[in-house]
């Protein structure tokens, strides 16, 4: 069972009114730490977490700090412990790989909350936060199958956030046309923009007219390929706004405002009302996840398809369509 976000938010609202301003001011200074498995300078996975941290700083006035850990499991536990021992109340480990280390440290710091991105864990003060990217990708798949001939997906490494997204895309496309051809390739890392670009180019030359890259730092290479291949190839911007890179090709934007989601969770924790289950953000959380169409580009999605997508989106939000089940 997943936490219902609506009741959760209402609870938070009620509580913050009840506690009112003086009560909040009495609370000790909020400190939040972040562990990322790479550099926050690149557009992509790590930047999302950095933006979330910034959001908490701006909206909740928290003191923030982050550490870039170069995918080093041996350092995870130490970093959690460093933050926890310095009195940080909330620590976000950005990726499922932080889960084991957080569980270990959490036993010694029962008052600290450990949030883990891309995880479904919930044990005491360790709370998984997942953004269900299969949902927006399902919508992209629907559009691709309705408007295109063939789709191509370029992934970084084969890890859950990327696999889940691609599963959603395939489910969406196949809900329209069970035989819609989709090819998939992984470049095996998140740094090789050149490989991402060539993978996308080869898909396009093999007839793909919808290409969506999803490879963190290397993603931009995929958009570059789309942009160079002319307006007949379409794409969707994911996570960040890439319309500047491929202005003639991007039909719509999936924007994840992870910050909003994290801010809400941190607010609840601050109010002594931490989530009692793991949190999954989806299209139902309109502040966190949005899928929008572009109107300023030379290509756009026709009205009738937009209406259908809207209807499907509502059904997903209502839980009537499951987007992430393996086909």
């Amino acid at each position: 069972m997943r936490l219902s976000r609506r009741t959760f938010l209402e609870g938070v609202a009620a509580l913050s009114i009840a506690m009112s301003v003086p009560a909040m001011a009495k609370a000790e200074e909020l400190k939040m730490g972040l562990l990322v498995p790479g550099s926050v300078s690149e557009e992509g996975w790590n930047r999302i977490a950095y933006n979330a941290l910034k959001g908490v700083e701006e909206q909740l006035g928290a003191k923030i700090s982050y550490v870039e850990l170069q995918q080093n499991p041996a350092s995870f536990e130490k970093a959690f412990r460093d933050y926890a021992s310095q009195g940080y109340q909330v620590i976000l480990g950005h990726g499922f790989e932080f889960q084991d280390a957080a569980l270990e440290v959490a036993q010694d710091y029962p008052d600290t909350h450990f949030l883990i991105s891309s995880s479904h864990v919930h044990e005491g003060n360790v709370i998984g936060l997942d953004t269900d990217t299969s949902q927006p990708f399902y919508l992209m798949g629907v559009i691709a199958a309705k408007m295109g001939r063939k789709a191509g997906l370029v992934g970084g490494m084969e890890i859950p956030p990327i696999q889940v997204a691609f599963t959603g895309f395939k489910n969406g496309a196949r809900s329209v046309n069970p035989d819609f051809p989709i090819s998939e390739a992984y470049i095996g890392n998140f740094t090789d923009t050149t490989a991402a670009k060539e993978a996308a180019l080869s898909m396009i030359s093999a007839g793909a007219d919808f290409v969506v890259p999803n490879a963190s730092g290397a993603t931009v290479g995929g958009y570059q390929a789309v942009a160079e291949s002319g307006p007949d190839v379409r794409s969707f911007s994911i996570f960040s706004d890439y319309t500047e890179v491929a202005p003639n090709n991007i039909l719509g934007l999936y924007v994840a405002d992870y910050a909003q989601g994290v801010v809400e969770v941190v607010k609840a924790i601050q109010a002594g009302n931490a989530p009692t289950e793991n949190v999954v953000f989806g299209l139902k959380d309109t502040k966190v996840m949005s899928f929008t169409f572009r109107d300023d580009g030379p290509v756009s999605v026709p009205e009738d398809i937009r209406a259908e997508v809207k209807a499907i989106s509502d059904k997903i939000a209502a839980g009537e369509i499951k987007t992430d089940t393996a086909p």
Partner: protein
Amino acid sequence: MDDMMFLTFAATLVGAAWRLATPLIFASIGEVFSERAGVLNIGLEGTMLVGAFCGFAAAFATGSVPLGLIAGVAGGMAFGLIFAVFTITIKADQIVVGAALNLLGMGLTAFLFRTYYVSTGKGIEIAQPIAIPFLSDLPFFGEAFFKQNLIVYSTVLVTVLAALLLYRTSFGLTLRAVGEHPKAVDVAGRNVAAYRYGAVLIGTGLAGLGGAFLTLGHSNQFVEGITSGRGFIALAVVVFARWSPIGAFFVSMLFGLFYALQLMLQAQSSIVVPYQLLQALPYIMTIVTLVVVRGKSAAPSKLGQPYEMR
């Protein structure tokens, strides 16, 4: 696959292979010069990163790709100068210094990128493909061979120039002699160290150009570790190519071909082999080739050894 599809597939493959080979061609031809003069520079990966970063930084600031390329080459050479001072003047072990420069190159570019480029927006305008009239309209292979950007085309020019320089000029002759019989060069009154400096700077300049191609001629952003091991592959290319510039061109193309094939085969949903096997293929192939060609026989005899003057 029918014939038409196969031809399209092959044409795409060749076009992609050439682009993927380009950074390898520059870096490995550069390394040929260096190694022919007896200097083994395993710091290519770090040097290429420096080239990629300097190229990006210059183009981002000025908006000019040619300036970026110049900066990439200059960055590579500046980095190569450190290598040359340590290995030629101080006569330190080449592998030790190369390993240090790899760490330095990775660390420095990542440090500066994280410090100064928190957001680079849409990045830079990269060099655009130029379609050669008529030829690029040829069916199938027209675009693969005749619609690339200038940097990709220039690999042919660089290869030819490198071969001429190495085999047809007295500079090249002396340079090769420095790697085989430095004492003879010394006796003949030529400065061994000066030739080695020249070889290293040519080598690292080209490595810097190879790195700069990644940010200026292919993707429009710098990403930490964007070279993704190409500097190490270039070392293998040199051995595989038996220290010949023309050989380096074709071996790099072969690596590019494998890399492109790997990406394209993954996208063919009918292929059931794990894609990691395809990814490992170029590396396995390098090892197999080393065994088959028995690399050592063609290696410059004084490779890796500092020269002690009389």
